[in-house]
């Protein structure tokens, strides 16, 4: 009598880089992991890799030193060179502007390359998944480049019922302000494309133009989901723009200038040698302003919990349902550009820009601190996305008009009282 052949499932075969993750002791990931995480060698190794990366980045920044003050001598050197060879100065200035603009253009591109990968990894780890692991060998580091190639090769679809020209122009109208808006942003000491005197107003003004592109996309797609998404988006962005702008006014009142790099530079120094003079540490006013600005910024970038313009479960993908290929990529790029912009603004307004948090940490250059603060804030943005449920449409509006806006207005009054109090303090009228 023959034995019945039991179907024998072979052990899963993985390639080398993947097999390491599913070794027998890790099979029960994540349940066993959370019991005693430090008992797992992979966990300890991961922490060591992270610490190594951070200290390596800090060391590289220390070796590089300040970049900002080196730029102006470079330009005068180019001018000297042009003079000695008889090249007209007009050409040098044009070339210099083009180079600066190209560097500025690279900011949203590189940011998207990094932020998309980071968002996927963070979301995966928050949901006890791995996220991208294959492309680029190390933790899927090149996943976004592969995604970009995929988007390049995709067919560019235009719906039959679409308004062709407006449909084509909508991503352009979204991405152009998203690039222009980085012009007055300081990335460190003296590291700014255009040191505008009205930097703050410029950022809020130009950043608001993208709403038009979103409405265009929603309307021109000829799709009811897109139209609803565009409409919701217009309502939400126009509403949340108000508390977002009003929450910055206390900072401007305290700083007395609209220039972004001047606002960041004013926060140098420490109270009692320990507490940095950042605007977030001004009692009550600073914290309220920061929280309102943070909430309104998350809403302005259409991210969860304020993502009703593109709520997947209700509206397919909202205003960008009918977009594919590079047009869709432009919407995506601008969303991440605005996330980066919000984080840069928060770092400049509330966290002292390029100033180190403690006096003895001043050996790192200002751009490293600026970038570090921005990345920490960006992590918060990604963290919110995978933590909170979505708002309902009417709740969203109620929250803005009945809570955020009055709070931000009251905060302006409180800032006035605080300034008066500080003036009295400085004049020695209070308690001597």
């Amino acid at each position, binding site marked *: 009598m023959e034995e019945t052949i039991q179907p024998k499932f072979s052990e899963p075969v993985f390639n080398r880089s993947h097999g390491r993750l599913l070794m027998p002791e890790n099979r029960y990931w994540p349940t066993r992991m959370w019991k005693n995480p430090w008992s797992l060698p992979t966990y300890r190794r991961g922490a060591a890799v992270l610490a190594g990366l951070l200290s390596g980045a800090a060391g590289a920044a220390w070796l590089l030193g300040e970049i900002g003050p080196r730029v102006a001598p470079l330009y005068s050197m180019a001018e000297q060179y042009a003079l000695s060879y008889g090249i007209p100065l007009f050409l040098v200035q044009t070339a210099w502007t083009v180079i600066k603009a190209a560097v500025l253009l690279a900011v949203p591109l590189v940011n998207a390359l990094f932020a998309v990968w980071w968002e996927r990894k963070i979301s995966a780890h928050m949901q006890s998944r791995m996220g991208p692991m294959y492309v680029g060998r190390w933790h899927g580091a090149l996943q976004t480049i592969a995604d970009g190639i995929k988007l390049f090769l995709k067919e560019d679809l235009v719906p039959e019922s679409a308004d062709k020209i407006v449909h084509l122009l909508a991503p352009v109208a979204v991405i152009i302000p998203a690039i222009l808006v980085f012009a007055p942003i300081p990335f460190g000491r003296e590291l700014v494309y255009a040191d*505008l*005197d*009205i930097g703050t*107003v410029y950022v809020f*003004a130009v950043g*608001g133009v993208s709403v*038009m592109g979103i409405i265009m996309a929603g309307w021109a797609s000829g799709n009811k989901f897109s139209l609803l998404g565009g*409409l919701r988006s*217009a309502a939400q962005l*126009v509403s949340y723009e108000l508390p977002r702008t009003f929450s910055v006014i206390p900072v401007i009142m305290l700083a007395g200038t609209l220039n972004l790099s001047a606002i960041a530079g004013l926060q140098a120094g420490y109270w009692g040698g320990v507490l940095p003079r950042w605007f977030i540490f001004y009692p009550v006013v600073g914290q309220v302003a920061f929280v309102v600005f943070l909430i309104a910024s998350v809403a302005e970038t259409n991210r969860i919990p304020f993502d009703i313009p593109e709520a997947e479960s209700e509206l397919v993908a909202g205003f960008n349902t009918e977009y594919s290929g590079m047009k869709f990529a432009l919407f995506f790029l601008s969303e991440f550009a605005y996330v980066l912009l919000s984080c840069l603004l928060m770092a400049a307004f509330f966290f002292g820009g390029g100033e180190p948090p403690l006096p003895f940490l001043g050996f790192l250059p200002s751009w490293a601190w600026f970038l570090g603060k921005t990345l920490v804030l960006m992590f918060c943005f990604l963290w919110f996305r995978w933590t909170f449920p979505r708002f309902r449409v009417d709740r969203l509006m109620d929250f803005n008009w009945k809570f955020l806006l009055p709070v931000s207005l009251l905060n302006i009054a409180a800032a006035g009282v605080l300034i008066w109090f500080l003036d009295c303090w400085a004049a020695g009228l209070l308690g001597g």
Partner: protein
Amino acid sequence: MIEQIVFYMLAAVIILSALGVVLLPGVMHSALCLGLCLAGVAGVFASLGSDFIFAAQILVYVSGIAVLILFVVLLAGSASDLVTRQINEQWLPSLLICAAFIWSFLRIPAYFSGITAKSDPAPTVRALAGALLGDYAVPFELISIVLLASMTGAVLFARRKAE
């Protein structure tokens, strides 16, 4: 040289988009052209070196009023708005009226055309703030009271209609 190139480009954008506002079929296209036209005017302000007016123009007109107009078109529009021609049989009289207005408006800049800026453009915010909250504080506050009153009135009317 560069100033002139920039000016003529901006002027072309403004005039073409302004023509688009009144000639294009469909309310939505007109609203979008209006946004472009207002942005072009902001560009002229920027090229003349008045930085705050440029930012205020973008903030108030392009990302405020133009977006609100788009919003109204999306909410209150009907299907026929998208194809309706904007020109009826009375285009000739209206063209004549416009020509009369343009001719009279042209006389105003002609009066100032000999005046050129003496120095490079400088930041204007400080001077503006000093004027608005110093010499002209009373008219400034009066205007805000008028705006507040009109806003309250709008809320009142909207509420009464709802009942």
